[in-house]
């Protein structure tokens, strides 16, 4: 019985298998021969542009580039030249410098502030808003370990990171058993000179020029990236149980005694400093001098006094400190390089174009005519 069933089932199966197999084969044979499809893609016949680089064909490109670049370059150069910029070095390397004394006997841990002031003259009046920068040279803010030495979560107001800063902050992570807020080497080395600007008017009186300290940081930094723990309510409480960075004279919540909104991690000077510079010579925006009215220049030409509270030592690593006043254009600060580069590259292109033209005329005339489709 079982045998019979088995046999019958076997036969059925076999027939089935055979059938389907044959059908499969047949089907495969009938419409699916192994012949490859004759499509442009499979036969590698896709329509294509085949440029041939010869003097004749690339010549227009050189001239076009030349002709476009030179005017752009001139435009950029002019724009950059219209920007007024004034720079004064107040490091005090030179013994004649007013800040020489401060520079000499200063170190990070001194408690008494040292002040000095420098006189300078603006030959030309500065129209529109003037940006006041402090510049540092030879300061490697881009050092690999320095760049890493921060805790972004802590700066974003994360309460756990406040109490337990990231390991990256080492060795500026804790001080005397308390976590440092803000931790890390960048924060620790915060630029802490205070600069004030006085205009000496014609009758010799010093007029303090109002320096705006708001709006110097990126908006996203101030409002998104940097946040105080527990919002902005009572920073003293919020930062309880943390220690100030070793080099700082005061805790983070007292950075700006005048404006409580500019304290803690969202202090704009602090934010600006935390954005590490790309190159060892850099400037950072310090203050903005707002244009008062359309008639009078923001900074009229004349004598000025720069008063410095000298706190920041740079001489140990042969650094320099500068104060820069600059207007800006749509292209940013004063930098004639891009304009010159455009003019140079444009001229080179033009010149090479001429060379190619000569080559083309001397050697290449057959090819071009061959290229002309009939």
């Amino acid at each position: 019985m079982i045998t019979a069933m088995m046999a019958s089932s076997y036969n059925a199966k076999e027939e089935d298998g055979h059938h389907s197999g044959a059908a499969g084969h047949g089907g495969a044979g009938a419409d699916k021969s192994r012949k490859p499809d004759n499509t442009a893609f499979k036969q590698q016949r896709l329509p294509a542009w085949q440029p041939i680089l010869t003097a004749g064909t690339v010549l227009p490109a050189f001239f076009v580039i030349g002709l476009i670049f030179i005017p752009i370059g001139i435009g950029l150069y002019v724009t950059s030249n219209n920007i007024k910029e004034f720079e004064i070095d107040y490091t005090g390397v030179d013994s004649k410098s007013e800040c020489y004394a401060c520079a000499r006997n200063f170190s990070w841990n001194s408690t008494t502030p040292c002040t000095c002031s420098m006189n300078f003259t603006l030959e030309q009046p500065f129209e529109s808003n003037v940006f006041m920068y402090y510049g540092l040279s030879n300061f490697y803010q881009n050092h690999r370990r320095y760049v890493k030495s921060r805790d972004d979560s802590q700066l974003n107001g994360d309460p756990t990171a406040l109490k337990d800063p990231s390991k990256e902050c080492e060795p500026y992570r804790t001080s005397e058993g308390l976590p440092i807020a803000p931790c890390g080497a960048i924060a620790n080395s915060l630029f802490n000179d205070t600069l004030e600007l006085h205009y000496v008017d014609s009758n010799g009186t010093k007029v303090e020029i109002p320096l705006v300290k708001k709006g110097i940081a990126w908006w996203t930094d101030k409002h998104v990236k940097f946040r105080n723990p527990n919002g902005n309510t009572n920073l003293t409480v919020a930062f309880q149980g943390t220690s100030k960075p070793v080099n700082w004279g005061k805790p983070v919540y007292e950075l700006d005694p005048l404006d409580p909104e500019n304290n803690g991690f969202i202090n704009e000077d602090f934010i600006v400093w935390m954005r590490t510079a790309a190159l060892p010579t850099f400037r950072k925006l310090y203050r903005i001098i707002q244009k008062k009215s359309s008639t009078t220049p923001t900074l009229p030409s004349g004598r000025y006094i720069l008063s410095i509270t000298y706190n920041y030592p740079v001489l140990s690593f042969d650094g320099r400190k500068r104060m820069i006043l600059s207007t800006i254009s749509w292209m940013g600060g004063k930098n004639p390089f891009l304009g010159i580069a455009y003019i140079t590259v444009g001229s080179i292109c033009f010149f090479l174009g001429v060379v190619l033209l000569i080559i083309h005329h001397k050697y290449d005339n057959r090819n071009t005519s061959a290229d002309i489709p009939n």
Partner: protein
Amino acid sequence: MEKKKREEDTGGTSNKSAPKVKQRQRKKKSKESKTRTVHANTLYDSAKGEENPNRHYANNKIKTTKYTLLSFLPKNLFEQFHRFANVYFVFIALLNFVPVVNAFQPELALAPVVFILSVTAIKDLWEDYRRHRSDKEINHMDCLVYSRTERRYVEIYWKEVRVGDFIRLRCNEILPADVLLLSSSDPDRLCHIETATLDGETNLKQRQVVRSFYDLDCDFDPLKYNSVIECEKPNNDLSRFRGYIIHRNGRRDALYKDNLLLRGCTIRNTEEAVGIVIYAGHETKAMLNNNGPRYKRSKLERQMNVDVFWCVIILLVMCLFAAVGHGLWMFQYGDKRPVFDVLSPEGADLSPIMSAIYLFLTMIIVFQVLIPISLFVSIEIVKICQVYFIHNDLELYDEETDSHLQCRALNITEDLGQMQYIFSDKTGTLTENKMVFRRCTVAGVEYSHDANARRLAMYQEVDSEEEECMSHGGTLPRRDSVTSHQSARVVLRSQSTKSHRRTGSRAEAKRASILSKHTAFSSPMEKNITPDPQLLDKVNECSSQMDFMRFHSQSMSTLPSDLCDIIDFFIALTICNTVVVSSPNQPRQKVRMRFELKSPVKTIEDFIKRFTPSRLTSAESPDEAALVYAARAYKCSLVGRLPDQVTVELPHLGKLSFELLHTLGFDSTRKRMSVVVRHPLTDQITVYTKGADSVIMDLIRPSSHDASGKRQKKILYRTQNYLNQYAADGLRTLCIAKKVLSKEEYACWLQRHLQAETAIQGREELLFESALRLETNLHLLGATGIEDRLQDGVPETIASLRRAGLQIWVLTGDKQETAVNIAYACKLLDPEEELLTLNADSQEACALLLDESLHYIQAKFLCSSSDQAPKAYLSNMADSDLYSSLLVHRLGLVIDGRTLAYALDRTLEDKFLAVARSCRSVLCCRSTPLQKSMVVKLVRNKLKVMTLAIGDGANDVSMIQVADVGVGISGQEGMQAVMASDFALPRFSYLQKLLLVHGHWCYSRLANMILYFFYKNAMFVALIFWYQFYCGFSGSAMIDQWYLIFFNLMFSAFPQLITGTLDKNVSAETLQRLPQLYKNGQNSEEYKPYMFWMNMIDAFYQSLVCFFIPYFAYSDSEVDLFTWGTPITTIALFTILLHLGIETKTWTWMNWSSICFSIALFFTVALCYNASCPTCYSPSNPYWTIQRLLQDPQFYFLCVITPCSALLPRYFYRACQGTLFPSVVQVGRQLDKLPSETRQNILSLSGVAAGSQLSPQPQFLSTNKSLPKDGVGKNTVAQLYQKEDAGRDKETCKDVYSLVNTEGDTLPYTKDLPGGQLNISTQSSGGLVRSAEESHVLPNIDCVELPPEHGPSCVRYKRSPEEALQNRTEHKIHVAL
């Protein structure tokens, strides 16, 4: 005897004394490790498995998967780490976990390596899964196995089959294991199998039941079986099986391969068979033959690895530089640690030296991209795509056999573009291996078969006629890729309609070949043989006489001996072979059904009726089949073949059955086969032998001193003459001989033969000796001449491959005369060439010959170096630069196997090579497979050239394996060559497109891609290197680590893959028409060592630009690290993409879209990444960076100027190069740009010039690279011709000028031409007229003068056409010592 007894013991009585058996088994194992003993499982209770002596053998479950779920991860990783690069990258990634040296977030640094590893792992996993599925399917197939408990056959899965099981097999079933055939439903105890899955041969093979079960009348009962089988251990030799079976009564019977049914074969024609499983599962021969794909490393890859090594050096130098720089930087601060120099995480104050050491490691991490991690993966991807395109090429598809090119080795496609030497087999490769009987000589009388020759000629005419009308209808010759498809369609249709009205047309030949695919017989051309009337008469007369004699029972010996010879001759033709006859109504027909479905049923059915004779014949070799068909034409037809009997139908005599006593098969050492039969008419034991004339002629011993002996000698002499004549006509010759044995002689021989048969050790040698003993003192019957037709397009292919600078050597086992003639036929040898023939009988003679040849060549051709004494020349033999100094002359070298054996000796091989190398073509005849491979090896190793071996048969396998690239022709002789090959082609002529087009493309694509990769990574890494000067060598990077890591992997990955896959530097048509362009790859011109360095220099220049323009643009500004780094990344991306753009020759929409995609991907990723998280991604924390940059006009100005100035030099250089000193390839590309008509003209001109016989061009001039450039600013097209064809084609060039002239502008072209010959410049019509005129012009200008600066001494080559025609001289040296 004792041994036998013991085995019987173990087999029969083991049930009673299990422990004893075990002991013995163990003993036996140690003693007889070379055999396997198989008992029937029915003797053992399945419940007590441990008693079964078969239990140690593998079961039938197959598992081809590499991994299991558990072992996948470790095993796969282990395998991947075999690649050094992977280890390196993992090392780098792990280095990141060390806090002191880490450069990136450790997890992130792992990403690329994990990505690469996982891509490979997923690929492996997928492949393994597919294997697993197919395994499962196979394991669960059903088969019938005898069950002891149920006493009948039950259905079980394949995987449950064990060694010792009895299996019942039915028709069309596939064998689940290697089975010893014990019973068959066939009355003759035969079983037919088809071995297509094993070797691709579709002809049926007979297997026979083991002799002792032969006479079994009733059905085979497994329960009664209690013999023991002793056989060899599992091995992978398909054509060998040895062993014996021991019966209860102590009888021993030998087992042959004819008793074994192999796993994977299909049972045909046999209703039912029963066998015992001998090998199962992985121990079956089929499985043991399953080797994985071959791994070869291409030349380009070897070259690349050198440069990877250089990259490592550069990397180390850069790291060392940075480390020293850091140390110095630290040192300058002394003890005063600046605020920005942060202590190490541990708070330790590092000394400058320590931190320099740490920095060194950090820099390795930062610069790791210099060693391109994605290069290896990308190359693999590109190669797969290239293989895909090669597979899909319509022009490499053969309609007749429905087969296309197969790339079996995936990783050496680019080697195809760098070949220098081609070693080709002759039979089946150059020729079709479709044998056509042409003429024969019997008993010293030649029958020329003129009618047959005429008929064959007619076929050829029909062929060409049809091709002509096809090309008229389809407008263009089939090389034109654009229309090829349409024309192919047209062909098909016209053929199918034609096949109705005209018999014997090519269309039917095609149909027939589609029908029977691989079987030896395909076209009626081979089957229909018009008999020679004279011979036919004689056959009729003879047979009628014999019939008469038989009727009157007279002795046959009274027959005239020449008539007797004739009938014996045809009997020998009919039975002395292994041809199997099967009637069409047997199950085998079923297999054929699937072919029928392919085309309209009606036509095919009547077609089969008309063209399939009542019997289907399947032969193992086409020679045999041709002879059988020839005999059939004389009414001597093979009716049936059984293992012990052959039935032949003769005119008047009717069916005669010959008792087949022995078949001594063909082997390559004996070069003959014999059958021993009992003649039914004379009742004599007769040996019929068929074999190569060289061996048979030596075995003929005419009985001396009497009249018949004299006659015999005369016949011998005449036959030899005819044989020489046949060979001169390019026919394959076979001699037929017979021998009559007396009963005593036979008995004597038989005894020793049987001993040989049953021997287990050294059986082959014994059988060989036994055969030698038999095949002596033969009586010559006659000889046959079989034609092997050249394949289509072989001469053209050889001509164009040769123009491509390839040296073609033919290595054949054929006779010298045949080989030479075929070589002339396929234009391998030129009638105008001199021929050096080397035939030597000894080592000394060979040495002498070689020396003499060298002197001769030197005296004749090396007049420029005549100051060099020949002695010095010879003493410098070992110098490799000697080889390169030799030029290739218009000489052909022919060497035979024996001489070759001497020449390949270590002492002579250098000389041989020096001679062979300076000849244009080399022909090695009578060479054995081993010699073939030795020649290839010699050339490959000594000359350091790329070699390609192409062949179709088993005798070519070793040469295919030795060569750099092995190509198999999937033709008539089974699949062994294909199995061993890297590429399998349906026809020889496809080699042209494969090498000239695909090889060229693959090579140039890959070479360019690799160079680009090196450039790209160097350029990117150098950016960071320059930055180290501005960050105190602290290992800081301005490029965000995410960009740094994914730049290669994502942003810049796709365009280069597209270009690497699709770029065509010259169109396929131009490449085929101008084979000279192939030299580009041969000389590795796309990727030379200096190019790597040029690319590196360019990369450093570009990175300088890309670094310093942003540097100055942002110097002394408030820019922060990553706001400055992001533009640099962007600029680098643009520069890299534009660089690729300059190097891209063909822009399809794929290129455009891939570049757009890359840029879009970068900005999308950047925008998302910079907006995603304000606190993550320490330390860069790039929140809102790119968003601000995009609002900054300066960013855009930078992005425009920097790539422009970075690429300016390269762009300018490329433009100048394109004009001032274009490479040959560039000229080819310019040719592509010409309007199609002009291009056609130019190409057809060059085609005619090269293909025409009227161009006795001095080849050695054309390959002469030192030909001075004649002035820079020449017409590039003309220059090409001047370069390639030296002076000969000056006229052609002028015509090119004039042609271009008429198309484009006017006069400037003619300015640097010598005057005169420009009278045709105004002619604007097409190239047909042009080329016609051309051929008139050419013979008259056959004068070549090399420019004087080439050498002070003479190179003047002048020859008038008359001279040229007379010049077919043969410089033959025969030395016999």
